[in-house]
């Protein structure tokens, strides 16, 4: 996976989260994590998980939900899934 693809993936995740939480996209940094903003609460977290499944066509199981608690970890997980395919 080249850098261009990585950037594209990060951009897509950033856009997805910004839309889900209705916040400016520049607020969605790689460091942003569960609990950092009021919108990223339990309901917000699950909203992201469902949107990720829909947009990227992946299945996120119960174990993984608890691991994807920052933008960086979400991007890394999606990358791993792409490598695995």
């Amino acid at each position: 996976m080249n850098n261009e693809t990585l950037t594209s993936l990060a951009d897509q995740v950033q856009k997805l989260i910004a839309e889900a939480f209705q916040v400016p996209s520049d607020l969605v940094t790689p460091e942003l994590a569960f609990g950092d903003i009021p919108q990223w609460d339990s309901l917000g977290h699950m909203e992201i998980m469902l949107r990720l499944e829909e947009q990227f066509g992946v299945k996120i199981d119960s174990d993984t939900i608890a691991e994807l608690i920052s933008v960086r970890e979400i991007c890394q997980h999606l990358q791993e899934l792409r490598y695995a395919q």
Partner: protein
Amino acid sequence: MLNNSKQKPNNSMDSSRSAEQKIHLEITPEIPIPTFLTSEIQSKLAYVDEWITSAKVSSDKILVEITPTGTDDKTSSIPEVVKEIEEKIQQVVISMAKGSIKPKIQLLEDYLDRAVYYHSDPMDELFRRGEIGKEAEGIYSLGPFLSGLINYFEILFTDLAKSFEAIPYRFPTLIPARYMERVKYFQSFPHSLTFVTHLREDLNSIDSFAQNATCEGAELNTPLEYFDRIQSLLSPAVCYHLYFLLADKPLPGGKLTATAVGNCFRYESINLNSLERMWNFTMREVIFVGAKDFVLENRENARQRMEKKFEEIGMAYRVESANDPFFIGEFRKQAAFQSAFQLKFEIKAWLPYKNSTLAIGSYNYHQDFFGRSLNITLPNGSPAHTGCVAFGLERIAFAFLAQYGFDLTKWPDQIRSHLTHV
């Protein structure tokens, strides 16, 4: 879809109202219902419409009994109302089942194979002995035998609290609506709320009530406009009161372990059933507030200490991950979140007479939800984490009787010797 041909012959629909008429529907869900959701959806159907008097849900079939009461404000004909009910049921199925995430069931303890000595429903014998009085659906009075048994379990749980040096608190039965709003309870569990009101401070209303108030069946005939707007509810849990007490200030010392017992109220409609599922029940809680590790370690310590206590009294049960009964709109996300983060583990006691289990308590971790919502802060300024272990006193007594029955020679010595009225 509603299939008229599947209705029982004597339940054909017509446009006239009949208090005794029952309609049986067999509905095919628009999407298949995963087996892990059938009981959750079944319990929610009680809240779809007042006319629904029973429901049974399987993966590919929903059986619903509808009883037109004629006492509500429906203006449509019965077939129209039935069609509306069916549409609402399909909405519930789609809302809860579409895109649902299968919960990971984590089994922490499994002692379901312990010996049991009774295989009947204890309610029958309790009624025969005059040990319980059913005042209304979900509302029971308990006699001296049951009270003594519950008192034993109260001592068991207060001993657990003492082992943590928990500070005792006493909390009211009422809880302000504005408190519940602050922790988003209205969004999560609107269906189970119980509201409190009183007559308006108006002489005419009070006089009229005094002269005219009578009950028609179970219901007061008083016009709703006589009652004041709702400011309070009956408390659905004990620990909320502690969190409100700690709100909007730093937590002294950065940690707290507390304990309290209280009346709790959760309206469960047609799901109200014997001492298994009461509207008004008693809960003992041990509550932990502090840093994440403090709460999680104490929750785990409490589980291990209770494991020994349950072994001493030979209860057949298991402890497994669970979710709270969130209402339809929030269920899919909240339940999956609880499961993923292992926030709730229930103690499920074996009920031999129905080959099933009953949740008699739970070990809960709320992360920093209450700390954030109520601005309870740790010395470093971060929101406090909270957790609680909670036990339903009537339920555990009921489960004990379901396993041990009424032959006291079979009972563990420490419980038999505790009872003074047998």
